[in-house]
């Protein structure tokens, strides 16, 4: 295999940057949503649940278009960011937002399941031993749901890495800025003779996804070592 060309390296860097930032940015929000959905009862909960999962069933193109409307010059988010002189349109940050929104439902789900499967009597036992709510959370709740957090991070990263539709509509494919691996592969397949290069990128995407899964399995095994 010949060494990677500059555009290929650029696509890899954009992909890793976008997916990494999308995952890290969505994680706290996904954690909060998982906690609220698993532990709190409130009116409108089914509505919030549906809203979180909406990107899962909506055509990604629609999600991208709605992001474009929201973050556009006249959109509410676009105007709010414009006040600070920030625009995410056609920027890699916009690609990260699109990928984060698409990854969110996949990240909420494993953390919510981990919380719902948790034996809450253990938290009660910790409280009876004098632990404050904060200490119970840090020493019991968080470690016991760690495998769920890891699963969420990996799923989110993988989803963000593969995101295509919403990103293409929202920030289009600008090489070196918003053109991630899937967008680059798509672009190469549109031009005559681009197929060999597309294949190389496809193999690269495969390698990155595979590495992420192997790393996830390792961390998950470590987090659950007391179960073996």
């Amino acid at each position, binding site marked *: 295999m010949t060494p990677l060309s500059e555009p290929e390296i650029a696509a890899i860097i954009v992909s890793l940057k976008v997916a990494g930032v999308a995952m890290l940015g969505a994680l706290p929000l996904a954690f909060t949503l998982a906690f609220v959905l698993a532990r709190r009862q409130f009116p409108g909960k089914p509505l919030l649940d549906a809203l979180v999962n909406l990107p899962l069933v909506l055509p990604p193109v629609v999600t991208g278009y709605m992001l474009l409307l929201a973050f556009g010059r006249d959109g509410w988010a676009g105007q709010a960011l414009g006040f600070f002189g920030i625009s995410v349109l056609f920027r890699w940050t916009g690609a990260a937002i699109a990928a984060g929104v698409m990854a969110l439902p996949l990240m909420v789900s494993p953390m919510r399941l981990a919380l719902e499967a948790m034996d809450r009597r*253990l938290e*009660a036992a910790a*409280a009876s*031993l*004098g*632990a404050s709510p904060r200490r119970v959370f840090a020493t019991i709740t968080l*470690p016991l749901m760690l495998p769920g957090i890891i699963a969420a991070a990996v799923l989110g990263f993988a989803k963000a890495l593969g995101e295509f539709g919403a990103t293409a509509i929202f920030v289009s494919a600008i090489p070196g800025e918003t053109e991630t691996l899937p967008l680059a592969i798509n672009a190469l397949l549109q031009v005559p003779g681009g197929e060999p290069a597309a294949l190389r990128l496809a193999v690269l995407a495969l390698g990155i996804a595979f590495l992420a899964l192997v790393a996830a399995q390792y961390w998950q095994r470590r987090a659950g070592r007391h179960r073996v």
Partner: protein
Amino acid sequence: MTANFGTDNAMTAPAFDVDVSLQRGDFAGRFAFRSACSATAIVGPSGQGKSSLLLAIAGLVTPVAGHIRLGGRTLFDAGAGIDLPARDRNLGLVFQDVRLFPHLTVRANLGYAGRATLAEITAMAARLGLTALLGRWPRHLSGGEARRVALGRALLARPAALLLDEPFAHLDAARAAEVMALVAAAGATAPVLLVTHNTAEAAAIAAEIINI
């Protein structure tokens, strides 16, 4: 169901002064007793709400009415609106379902309350026959071993009272005798309340036995 017992003598501050109405799932009942003894046993068949009573005293189940006082300290009083959170009650509860923290080793479980030094943890482990198990995960313990860890964990929290739910289940006779001695020793510093279905066990360590 109503259970009403106790010594109605002129004690100023009995160790336990409990009168609570509990409602939990299918179970509803009232428990009322006072005891000034260092070790009190509540004996009765299962399904009578004995475990719920201990959970209520520990602050993990809220009674619908009544009061819970321990050595003059009010932990719960429905009338006065007092309901101390479990973490502030400072009671050592050994659960019937043990509830060891699965992600912590035996050593970390013993020290969870954070009130014992490493030397005290080691000494407690030795007394409970757990020295060889200190580095193990709870999942690899037998029922009796787990129960001893739970007892040690509660004792190392330096509780104002020790609450035991069927503490001698899953223990063979020799080990049960050792644990009974340990519980009796604990009774010297903090009152012990134990619930059991086994009259012989109750008689072995409790000065006062309340049948329900």
